[in-house]
């Protein structure tokens, strides 16, 4: 059991927790936060799982980097829409 696998296991736990949060939270902001945490978990798995075989693998690093960019932009978009929604009189916690 390497340290990398620990990353993956911790990542899975984070994912599991955040999925629970995502599904049970009503507030849209909370959901967004849960999504971000979930993303972190997945990234942990991504860097953690493949590493145990043959040293450092550049591919997961690159993938995670891309993933983070995507997640950030998605969060930004979600925030914009959420703000608009609230301004338009929408209830953020339906």
């Amino acid at each position, binding site marked *: 059991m390497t340290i990398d696998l620990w990353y*993956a296991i911790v990542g899975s736990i984070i994912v599991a927790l955040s999925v629970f949060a*995502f599904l049970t939270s009503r507030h849209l902001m909370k959901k967004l936060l849960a999504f971000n945490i979930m993303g972190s978990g*997945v990234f942990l798995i991504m860097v953690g799982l493949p590493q145990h075989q043959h040293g450092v693998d550049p591919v997961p690093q690159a993938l995670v980097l891309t993933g983070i960019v995507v997640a950030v932009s*998605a969060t930004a978009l979600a925030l914009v829409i959420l703000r608009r*929604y609230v301004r338009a*009189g929408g209830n953020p916690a339906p």
Partner: protein
Amino acid sequence: MTPILLIIPLAFAILTLLLPRNWARATIIPGLVLQVGAAVLLCIQIYHDGPQDYALGDWQAPLGISLIADGFSVTLLALTSLVAALCAVYAQYFLTRYPREQRYFWPLFWFLLAALNGIWLAGDLFNLYVGLELLGLSAVGMVALTAEKTTLKAALDYLYAALFGSLAYLAGVALLYGAYGTLSIVQLSEMAAANPTTQVALGLMTVGLLLKTAIFPLHYWLPPAHGGALAPVSALLSALVVKASFYILALLWLDVGALAVTVNAAQAMGFLGAGAIFWGSWQAFQTRQIKMLVAYSTVAQLGYLMLLFPLAIGVSEAAAHLAWQGTVLHLLAHAFAKAAMFLAVGTLVLALGHGRINDFGGVSQRNPVALFAFGLSAVSLMGLPPSGGFNAKWLLLQSAIASGQWHWFVVMVIGGLLTAAYVFRVFRVSFVQTAKHDIQETHPALQFSALALALMAIGLGFASEIPMSFMNLTDFTPSPGGSP
């Protein structure tokens, strides 16, 4: 040749983002011409030279981005260009009433196109992920365009579903990479064995993609999003966007994980499809708003796509081949027909000023072409001949007969009747002579772009040979494998 199809939309996306509004408008037609032209050229090239691989910037996989253009992907590319082009023509006239929305529509439109093209051409699972995310974000942006409370809510729901789905997918990708050390679809399809890791990975990805494809019972986000968006947006979303995630799903089940999937799982997917057909049709039959009707119709029609899995997995090669052909044809026919239907409905709503089906009286006199387009696309959706939808249904039925799966046979036949039940609700009222209020004339371009798409759906019934011959270029026939 291949990367041009990514470069063009991206370039125009940036162009339309940067240029002033009027200039941006002027770039649309050249952009569309370039895009369609490039797709057609690629089709011709593939037809002559066979499938091609292309490594972007000469960076080889796994770090580089590899593009694969085979018969299937060029078919989808051509479909995308055609549908998008007509939707764009429509949007040009439709959006004159929405100046603010117009500003953001075009960049999003081009990004959407780039994402779709990227997905069709992607050769590895991670590129598919990137494509999916880009697609999801631009689609959500388009839904949110009008910035009304309801559409914003729909956009948010859509966004969360898309994000959740993407992460589930990404987790699966991570597992697969951890197990096999590659993301290339070609390599994975040779390596992926029927072990728990693969199956868990596939399960995660499947759930994510089902959510993105809005397959019953995970379809909750689709009707408000598709029904609430502007007409050209709905058309693009229903015709193309949901197909992208289905495409990946099919790739996973029939190619990447062909050795890992089980017949029972495939049957379960079929039951989801059947549920979608019945539930979607029932909801479409119940709803009062015409756009919701069309949106629920999408839910139902997506169910037919899911029948691919039980019909193609664990059966004879001939039956699987039929199922595959039928599904592809259904995908194409539905894309044309549903785009046409949303555009036609958009025109009618524009003319009437509302979308209440029961108050559609008199619409046939003032907007006959739009109504006719609606009718033609409905013919294809109902699977009545002559239409692409009918040919697709025929092939699927033949596949069900060939593999002796009578339950799917029955589902498809009943599904056709249910479709008829809800589309004829619209025709019924359209024959009422007396209009309850004013009906405006609409721009002919709006009516005729819808008609052109509808005619393509019908014409596909006579030209099914073309996509089929492209399909035969790919050796992508689902393998008869699958452990019980």
